[in-house]
């Protein structure tokens, strides 16, 4: 997985703001559920198994 390259161009801040906005008004449990759905959707959007697994590994060890 390419976690070296930033790929969002000029949209990064906007996308980050939209991500936060998704959570507005949700309880902690609702937010966690939303994050789970989001991960599943993005896993499918990435598609390729090796890239998904690389992301799993990176997320598991943020300071790896």
């Amino acid at each position, binding site marked *: 997985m*390419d*976690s*070296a*390259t*930033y*790929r*969002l161009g000029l949209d*990064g*801040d906007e996308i*980050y*703001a939209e*991500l*936060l906005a998704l*959570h*507005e008004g*949700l309880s*902690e449990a609702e*937010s966690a559920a939303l994050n789970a759905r989001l991960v599943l959707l993005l896993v499918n959007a990435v598609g390729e198994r090796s890239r998904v697994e690389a992301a799993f590994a*990176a997320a598991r060890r*943020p*300071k*790896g």
Partner: protein
Amino acid sequence: MPRYTYRPFDYVAPPELTGGPVRDAPVVIVGAGPIGLAAAIDLALHGVASVVVDESDVVSVGSRAICWAKRTLEIFDRLGVGERMVEKGVTWKVGRLFHGEREVYSFDLLPEDGHKMPAFINLQQYYVEEYLVDRARDFPELIDLRWKSRLVGLAQTEAGVTATIETPDGRYDLAGRYLIAADGSRSTIRHLMGLEFEGTTFEDRFLIADVEMTADFPSERWFWFEPPFHPGQTALLHKQPDDIYRIDLQLDASADPEVEKRPENVIPRIEKAVGGRPFTLDWVSLYTFRCVRLARFVHGRVIFAGDSAHVVSPFGARGGNGGIQDVDNLAWKLAAVVKGEADAALLETYDRERVHATDENITNSSRSTNFMSPRTPMERLFRDQLLALAEDHPFARPMINSGRLSRPASLRGHVAAAPDGGGGPVHPGDPCPDAPLDGGFLLERLGGRFSLLAIGTAAPATLLPVLTLGSESLAAERYGRGLFLVRPDQHIAASWAPGEAGTAEIDAAVEAASARTKELA
């Protein structure tokens, strides 16, 4: 180095109260901060007289704005003070970001050469105002600066405005055809007119200090998340001229500001921030920040500019920089209307264009402030995990938002509809990029009036001033080949591919952009 010495400006009893001859100035400007002063100078360059009143008689007390962006410096240069500011200021373009002890990211705001002005300078607001006052004095016939003169009342009719001014010698009425409200974030005029700011107020407090220190810090912007010397918060360090450093420390919403402000609490934090170097405290102040604006900037004959019209949090340095761009946009339009060359409808384009630009500043400043002080546990979680990822995963680093530094607003899509045939990187509404030219710079040759830039092509017969450049130049790279109609504020009004425009097309574009009522002289 001595600290800044405030030299009060002389108050002179106004002719309205002494019975001397009263001058007829079409524009009254309230507020001699950076915005009011810049407006008076820009109007004077267009030959329009103004009276500027300010309740104080010294420049900005405390330093407030320090970071001035490239576009602002280009405007200051057009006004005749840019070079002096750059000479005195600390030029910088690199920002470094730390998380805890570690540097996680750095950015270069101006990676290319061939621009007259640097990405940023740091210069205390009191110097900026001092230089603007000096420059204003070059126009004794056109700029009447009146200190210790406070606006206390205001009336407007279809034909003009009357401001009631209070002075040490009593009150008088000052009449003008238009009034620029440049009276700052607590604007009296806004209150008198019953207008309200709309937007967001942030809870966290920020402690802002200027310290004097002989140190060997590089001329860079340093920003920390969770610095070892200020656990759990953010901190920002900037270098200013005269061995002065600006330090911003974020405080918890629950912190007691009065306690935090005490030198015995401030000094140890700063000591740690500067690694034990000796320093003295020059100025400390506490702020909460807002991102707000007026719904409209033009209210009949009263026009708001600068902090009276909009206020943003300082992360990104968009406050003063935004206000100077207001002036750049407004002055030529107001001058044309006052001189009877343009219809008053032209002022509506100031409202439309600067409201758009202000929203861009508000959006960016709000996002940065949110990133620093997350509003909910979930926002904090995302922020903290992004910072954690950034240590090893470069993709996350540019997403860290410690302030997106002021960039010139593009008015693309917000200016009068116009041909867009240049085919290069610039389009109508964009500010003109700079480029080297004949040992000087392109922007020194543009602006102040409508003009044509012909790159790699010939200009048709026109009454406009024309600047013709070859197609083998940095300018050609930055603009593309073609004809570019440039507004007095150095923004592209229209563009055409080579050979696409004749005299009539150009004339029509000038008319659309200028609401012109008179033929070109």
